[in-house]
C-alpha cells in the first residue's frame, strides 16, 4: 500500500514538474532584471507584492467602499450615479418600535433574519459543542475500527452546501423516505420543510450534520494532547470513569471547547448556503438568516430593484457582530496563553 502511494506521488511529481519548471523559468526572466534593479535586500517586497495586491484589492479597498455604499442611495452600482444619503440606510434598518418584535420594524425582513440567526446560532452552537465533544470522546476510546469511524464522522464536512441541502431536502420532503419510515411505524407525516417550526429544526439539524466532523476533529486533537499518565494515575486511585471525565478530561479540554465555541459562532452567524438550498429561507421568512437578507437585498430581489446601499449597511452591522466575536476570541486565547506561560 505504501509503495503504491509513493508511486502515485512520484507520478504526480513527474507530471507536474515539466510545466512547473517551465513556468518558473519564464517568471525568472522577469524576476532576474528586477533583482538587478532593486537589489537582494528589497526582494521580499517583490515577493509580497502579488499577495498584498490581492488582499488590498479584494479585502481592504472593499472595506472602505462598503462604508461608501452604505451612506449613498440609488440603485446604480457606479458611484458617479449614487447620491449621498447619510445614515438613511442605518436609520431605516434600525427603525423599530420594539426590537424583539420584527413586525413593529420598518424593515421587518432584516429583523426576522436577525432573530432567526440568533435562535439558529444559540441552538446550533450549543448542540454542536455537545455532539462534537461526545463524538470526540467516543472516537478517542480504544474501539475496533477507530480510523473507519473517524472518517465516517468527518466525511460530510467535505460536501458542498448545495449537495448537503439537496440530499436532505430529498430525505425530508413530504413524500420523502423519513416520512415513509415514520408512517410505516404508525406515525403521521411531518412537514419537515414546510412548517415554520420544523423548517428551523431541520435547518439546525442539517447544519450540525454537515459541520460536526470539523469541530470533532478540533476536540479530538485536544483529547490526544492530554497526558495519558493523568488517566493512569486516576485508574490507580480507582477513580470512576464519570469522575475521571468531569475532573480530568473536561477541565483540560476547556481551551479546545472555547475554540469550538468561538469558531462555530463566527461561522454560524454567517450561515447561508445549505439553508438557502434546503429551505430557500422559507416557509415565509422562517429560516432566512442575516446573510440571506444581504444577498437578497443586494443581488437577488425579484421585482424591486437591487438595493446595494441597504445591503452594504446590513453587512456593516454583521461586520460589527463578527468583530465582537473575534475580539472575544482574541481575549480568550490571550488569557489562555498567559496562563500557559505562568505554568
Amino acid at each position: 500500500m505504501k509503495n503504491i502511494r509513493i508511486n502515485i506521488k512520484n507520478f504526480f511529481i513527474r507530471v507536474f514538474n515539466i510545466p512547473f519548471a517551465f513556468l518558473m523559468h519564464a517568471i525568472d526572466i522577469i524576476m532576474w532584471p528586477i533583482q538587478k534593479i532593486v537589489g537582494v535586500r528589497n526582494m521580499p517586497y517583490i515577493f509580497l507584492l502579488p499577495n498584498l495586491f490581492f488582499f488590498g484589492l479584494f479585502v481592504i479597498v472593499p472595506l472602505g467602499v462598503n462604508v461608501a455604499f452604505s451612506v449613498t442611495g440609488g440603485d446604480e452600482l457606479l458611484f458617479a450615479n449614487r447620491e449621498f444619503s447619510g445614515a438613511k440606510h442605518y436609520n431605516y434598518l434600525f427603525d423599530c418600535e420594539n426590537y424583539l418584535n420584527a413586525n413593529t420594524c420598518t424593515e421587518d425582513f432584516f429583523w426576522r433574519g436577525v432573530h432567526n440567526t440568533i435562535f439558529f446560532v444559540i441552538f446550533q452552537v450549543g448542540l454542536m459543542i455537545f455532539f462534537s465533544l461526545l463524538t470526540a470522546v467516543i472516537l478517542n476510546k480504544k474501539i475496533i475500527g477507530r480510523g473507519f469511524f473517524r472518517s465516517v464522522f468527518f466525511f460530510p464536512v467535505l460536501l458542498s452546501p448545495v449537495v448537503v441541502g439537496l440530499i436532505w431536502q430529498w430525505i425530508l420532503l413530504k413524500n420523502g423516505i423519513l416520512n415513509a419510515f415514520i408512517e410505516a411505524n404508525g406515525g403521521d407525516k411531518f412537514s419537515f420543510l414546510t412548517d415554520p417550526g420544523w423548517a428551523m429544526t431541520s435547518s439546525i439539524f442539517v447544519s450540525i450534520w454537515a459541520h460536526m466532523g470539523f469541530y470533532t476533529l478540533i476536540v479530538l486533537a485536544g483529547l490526544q494532547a492530554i497526558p495519558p499518565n493523568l488517566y493512569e494515575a486516576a485508574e490507580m486511585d480507582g477513580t470512576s470513569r464519570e469522575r475521571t471525565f468531569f475532573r480530568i478530561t473536561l477541565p483540560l479540554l476547556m481551551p479546545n471547547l472555547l475554540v469550538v465555541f468561538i469558531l462555530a459562532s463566527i461561522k454560524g452567524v454567517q450561515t447561508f448556503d445549505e439553508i438557502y438550498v434546503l429551505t430557500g429561507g422559507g416557509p415565509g421568512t422562517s429560516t432566512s438568516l442575516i446573510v440571506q437578507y444581504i444577498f437578497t437585498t443586494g443581488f437577488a430581489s425579484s421585482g424591486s430593484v437591487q438595493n446595494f446601499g441597504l445591503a452594504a449597511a446590513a453587512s456593516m452591522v454583521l461586520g460589527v457582530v463578527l468583530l465582537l466575536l473575534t475580539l472575544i476570541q482574541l481575549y480568550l486565547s490571550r488569557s489562555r496563553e498567559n496562563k500557559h506561560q505562568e505554568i
Partner: protein
Amino acid sequence: MGNTASLIKNIVTQKKYKEKYHWTDYFSYFYLFLGVFLMFGPIIWLGLSSVKTLAGIQEYPPTILPLSQIQVEVDGYEKPLSLYNVTLEDGSTKELAEIKRVGITSKMVDPKDTEKKYKIPIDKREKIREFSVQWDNYLDPLRKYNFLLYFKNSIFVTVIATIITLIINSMAAYALSIYEFRGKNIALVFVIGTLLIPLTIILVPVFYVIANFGMINSLWGVILPGAATPTGVFLLRQYMLTLPRELIEAARMDHASEWAIYWRIVLPLSIPAIAVLAIFSIMWRWNDFLWPLIVLSKSEVYTLQIALNAFHGELTSQWNYVLAMTMVTLLPIALIFTYLQKFITTGIASTGMK
C-alpha cells in the same frame, strides 16, 4: 474481620472491573453505529435514488433499491402497460397489465390473451418489479442540459484558482519566513487582519470591484477575489520557518537568484504544506457557492454548484436528474477524500481551518 471482608470484596470487584464492560462501552458502539447510519445513510440513499426511474422516484412509500415496474407491450395499445400480480375473485393469481385506472378499480387486460378484460379493485393487485439501474439519469443532463460545460467550468475554476493561490501565497510566505526586512511585522498584521474580514461582510464592494474590471459573468470574477488567503500564507509560513537557513545561504553563495532559491529550494522542501493547501483550495473552490451565485448569472458560465441549484429550482419534479447530478458533484470530492484523508484531517487539526 469487617476490614478483611471489604478488602476481599475490593479485590474481587477490581479484578472484575477490568474484564467487565462499562455501560459507556455499550453506549459508544451504539452511538458509533447510529453515527454511521446517520452520516452515510443519506449518501447511500442519494446513490440508490439517483439510478431510479422517474416513476420510481415519485413512488410513495419509496422502495429502498432501484426497482422499477415491468412494462409490457400489448397488441392494440400504443404505450407499454404496467404489469401487476392480481388475485382474482376465485382466489387464483394472474399477471395482468393495466389499461386505465378509474377510482379504486382498474381496467386490466391479460397480455397473453388481449380479448380478456378485467375490472379489479386496486387493493387486490401488486406491482411486479425488477431491479433496474437507470443510467440515463446521468447521461441525459450531460447531453441535454449542458452539464458537461458546467463540469468543465468548475474544473477550470478549481485548477486555475488553486495554481494562483499556491503561487502567490507561497511567495508571500517565503518573503515572511526567510527574509528580515523593514515592515515585515506590518505585513504580518495586515495578513492576520484579512483573516478577520470574511467575504460575507464585503459582498457588495467586492462585487463593485469585480464590476469595474468587467469580470461579472466571467469565471475570472470567481477565481480572483479568493486567490490570496491568509490561511494559506500562515500554513506555508509556519512550515517554511522550520527549513534550514544554511541551504539558502549556500545557494546565495553560488549566485542563485532569489527567485531560483524560492522555486528550486524552498518550494520543493515545503511540499507537505503545499499539498495541504492545495487540497484545501481544491475543496474550497469546488464547493464554493455564495460568491459564484452573485457573480455568475448567465447559464453558460455556471459552475457545477450554481447549475445544480438553478437546475433544481427550474425542474423541481425532475428529482431523478437532480439527484444524479448531485452525485456527479459529490464524487470528485469523495474520491479525493478516500485517497488523501490523512492529509486533510491532519491539515485541519494543525491549522484549525477548513
